[in-house]
C-alpha cells in the first residue's frame, strides 16, 4: 500500500517535472524569430528534462562555475552542472533543506532525492566547491545520494591563495583518480581544452550578436542555449552554436534596423537556469531587449578562456585555476571590486540602458552586493531594478507590472534624452 502510494506520488512528480519543463520549452519555441538552428538546443533540453532520456554515459556532478569541466572530460567522464532551475524539484527539495534556502540548492537536492532525472541518476560522484553557505551545507545532504568530493574555494585572490587553489586542483585530480580508478590523460585534457575554447569562441560571438541593435536573437533564447551547454559535449555544442551564429549574422545583415529600437536591458547577478526562464521571457515579451547577462549559467559560463603557458598537465591546471577561480565574479569572493568593474565593463560593451538585478530568494551573497551595484548605476546615471523571486510562477503578474513600468521608464528617458 505504502509503496503503491509512493509510486503514485512519484508519478505525479514526474508529470509535474515534464510539464513545467515542457511549458518552458513551448515558451522558448513561441518566441518570434525561430531558426531551425535553435531546434538542436531545444532538443537537448527536451531530452534531459521532458523525455528524461538515459544517455548511457557516466557523469561527474559539479556545482557553480569553479570546477573545471576540462578536468572531468580528461578523466573520460562528462561533467553535469547540478545547479537546477526547476520549480517542482525546488518544492520537493524543501523536505531535505531549509525552506528559506535559495531555490537553486533546493531544486538540486530535490532532483537527487526524486530520482526521476536520468542524468542525475547517472552521476558517479559529485565535486562540490565550497562556495556559499547553502552549497557548503548541501554537500552533506547530497552525500546521502552519491559520493561527494569537496573542493576548497579560497575567499581571496592573492598570489598565495592562487597557489593554494592550484594545489587544491592538483589534489582534486588525485581524489577523482582515487574514486574512479582512472588516470587523468594529458592528451584528452589538451584536446578538451581546445574544444571548450572553441565553444567559448562561439559563445563570445553569440553574445556579440545579442548585443547588436534589435538583435535577431532574444536574450531568453541565448540564455537557454548557454544552459544547454551543461547537458551537451563542447564539440557538438560549439558546432551547433557556430551554425546558429552564421545564420544570425546573415539575418542581422538583411533584417537589422527594422522596427523601433527596443529598450536595452542588462540582466545581472543570480543565475537563470532552464526551465526557470520567466524573467527573461517576461522582459522580452514586454518589448525590451536583453543585451547581455552576467549570470553564472549563461553569460559567465563560458567567459574567460583558459590560456595555458605550457601544455603539461601542471601547466594546464594553473591555467584552469586562473580561469575558473581567479576570473570568477561570484560574490563569495572577498573583493567586490572585480565584480563592479566587470559589470561596468559589460554595461559599456553591451550599450545597456537599464539593469535588472536578479536575486533568487534566499541567496544572501548576491543580495548583499545590490547596494554597490546601485551606486555604480547611480554613477552611470542608469536605472536599476532589483527583482527578487524564486522558481514559482506565482509572482509572475507582480513582476510583470514592475518590469512594464521599468521598460516604460527607459523609453521615456530615451525620448527625453533623444
Amino acid at each position, binding site marked *: 500500500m505504502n509503496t503503491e502510494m509512493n509510486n503514485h506520488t512519484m508519478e505525479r512528480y514526474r508529470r509535474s517535472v515534464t510539464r513545467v519543463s515542457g511549458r518552458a520549452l513551448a515558451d522558448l519555441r513561441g518566441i518570434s524569430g525561430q531558426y531551425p538552428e535553435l531546434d538542436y538546443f531545444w532538443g537537448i533540453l527536451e531530452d534531459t528534462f521532458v523525455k528524461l532520456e538515459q544517455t548511457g554515459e557516466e557523469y561527474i556532478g559539479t556545482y557553480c562555475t569553479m570546477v573545471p569541466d576540462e578536468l572531468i572530460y580528461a578523466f573520460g567522464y562528462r561533467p553535469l552542472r547540478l545547479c537546477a532551475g526547476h520549480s517542482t524539484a525546488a518544492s520537493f527539495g524543501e523536505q531535505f533543506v531549509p525552506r528559506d534556502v535559495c531555490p537553486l540548492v533546493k531544486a538540486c537536492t530535490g532532483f537527487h532525492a526524486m530520482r526521476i532525472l536520468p542524468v542525475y541518476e547517472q552521476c558517479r560522484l559529485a565535486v562540490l566547491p565550497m562556495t556559499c553557505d547553502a552549497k557548503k551545507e548541501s554537500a552533506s545532504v547530497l552525500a546521502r545520494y552519491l559520493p561527494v568530493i569537496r573542493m576548497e574555494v579560497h575567499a581571496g585572490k592573492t598570489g598565495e591563495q592562487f597557489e593554494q587553489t592550484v594545489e587544491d586542483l592538483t589534489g582534486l585530480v588525485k581524489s577523482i583518480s582515487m574514486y574512479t580508478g582512472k588516470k587523468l590523460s594529458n592528451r584528452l585534457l589538451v584536446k578538451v581544452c581546445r574544444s571548450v575554447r572553441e565553444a567559448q569562441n562561439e559563445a563570445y560571438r553569440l553574445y556579440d550578436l545579442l548585443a547588436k541593435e534589435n538583435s535577431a536573437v532574444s536574450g531568453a533564447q541565448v540564455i537557454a542555449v548557454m544552459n544547454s551547454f551543461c547537458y551537451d559535449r563542447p564539440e557538438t555544442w560549439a558546432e551547433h552554436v557556430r551554425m546558429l551564429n552564421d545564420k544570425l549574422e546573415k539575418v542581422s545583415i538583411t533584417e537589422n534596423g527594422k522596427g523601433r529600437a527596443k529598450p536595452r536591458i542588462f540582466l545581472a547577478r543570480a543565475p537563470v537556469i532552464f526551465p526557470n526562464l520567466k524573467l527573461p521571457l517576461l522582459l522580452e515579451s514586454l518589448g525590451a531587449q536583453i543585451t547581455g547577462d552576467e549570470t553564472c549559467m549563461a553569460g559567465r559560463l563560458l567567459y574567460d578562456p583558459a*590560456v595555458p603557458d605550457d601544455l603539461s598537465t601542471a601547466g594546464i591546471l594553473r591555467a584552469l585555476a586562473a580561469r575558473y577561480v581567479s576570473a570568477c565574479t561570484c560574490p563569495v569572493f572577498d573583493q567586490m571590486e572585480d565584480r563592479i568593474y566587470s559589470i561596468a565593463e559589460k554595461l559599456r560593451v553591451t550599450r545597456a540602458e537599464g539593469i535588472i538585478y536578479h536575486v533568487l530568494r534566499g541567496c544572501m551573497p548576491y543580495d548583499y552586493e545590490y547596494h554597490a551595484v546601485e551606486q555604480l548605476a547611480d554613477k552611470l546615471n542608469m536605472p536599476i531594478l532589483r527583482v527578487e523571486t524564486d522558481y514559482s510562477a506565482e509572482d509572475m503578474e507582480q513582476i510583470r507590472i514592475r518590469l512594464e513600468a521599468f521598460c516604460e521608464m527607459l523609453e521615456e528617458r530615451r525620448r527625453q534624452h533623444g
Partner: protein
Amino acid sequence: MNKRKITAFRLMFLLICTVFTTWGAVFSGRQITSALPVFSCAYVPSSGAIGICKTLTTFSLTLVSGAGTALLSVLGAILVCAVGILLFGRLWCGYVCPFGFYQEILSIVRRKLRIPGVQMPETLKPVLRVTKWIFLLFLLLGIGFCNLCPVRFIMPALAGYGSQVELAGLVLTGILTAVCFFRERFFCWICPMGSLMGLANKKSLGRIKKEGSACTHCRVCLEHCPMDIELIYTERELKDVTHSDCIFCMKCIEACPEPDALSFTILNKKILTSKRDLR
C-alpha cells in the same frame, strides 16, 4: 593553444640578431660596434657586434691607466650604449640579446616536451632583486666578471669556439642552463645589464599600457610573464604599467583575452593591442 604571432615574430627577430651577434663578422668582415647593451660575448671571434659588458668590466682599469685615446673610445662606446638604453630600455633583452635567445630555446624545448615550468618561490624574489644589483656592482668594478660569466662559457661554445673551458665556469653554466630550462628567462632576473636598463624602462619609448576597467583579473598576463610582474595583473587605475623588469616580450598582450585591455605603444601610438583571438 593561442596563435602566438607576436612571439613568433619576436623569436625570428631574436634569431636574426643572435646570428648577427654570433657570426656577423663572417659576413661583414668586422665588428660593427662593441657597444650593444646585451650579452653578446666578446670572446666570440666571429661576433658582428659585441656587448658593452666587456668594456664595462675593464672600464675601471682604463680609468686608472688613463691612456687618453683608449679612454676616449671607451667613453664613446658607453655614450652610444647609453643612448640605446635610454631609447629602448629593456626592449634589448626581448629582441636582441643572444643569451636571451639561448634561454628562450631552452623554454621552447621544455614546452615541446610538455614539462611544466617551475614557479619562482616568493622567498627567493627579494634575494634575486638584491643579487642583480650586486652583480651590476661587480660588473662595473670588473670583479670576476668574464672569468665566471656563464655567457662566456655558453656563447663561444655555441658559436663553435670551445677553447675556454674552466671547471668552475662549466659547473656554473650547467646549473644555470638547468635553472633556465625550468624557469623561463631566469638569468634575466639577475642580469646586471638588465637591471641597468630597467632604470631606463620608466622613460623609454615603448610603453605597456593597461585599460584597468576592461580587466577581468583572470591572471593570464601574470601567468605568462617570464618576469612575474604582478603590477600588470593587479593594477586597475594606472594606465602605464611598464615595470622596470619588463623585457617587452609582449606575452601578456598576446595572451590577454580582453580586447584592448593591454596594449603596447611607442610615442603614444598603439603598436599592439590585446585581442579576443582564441583560435
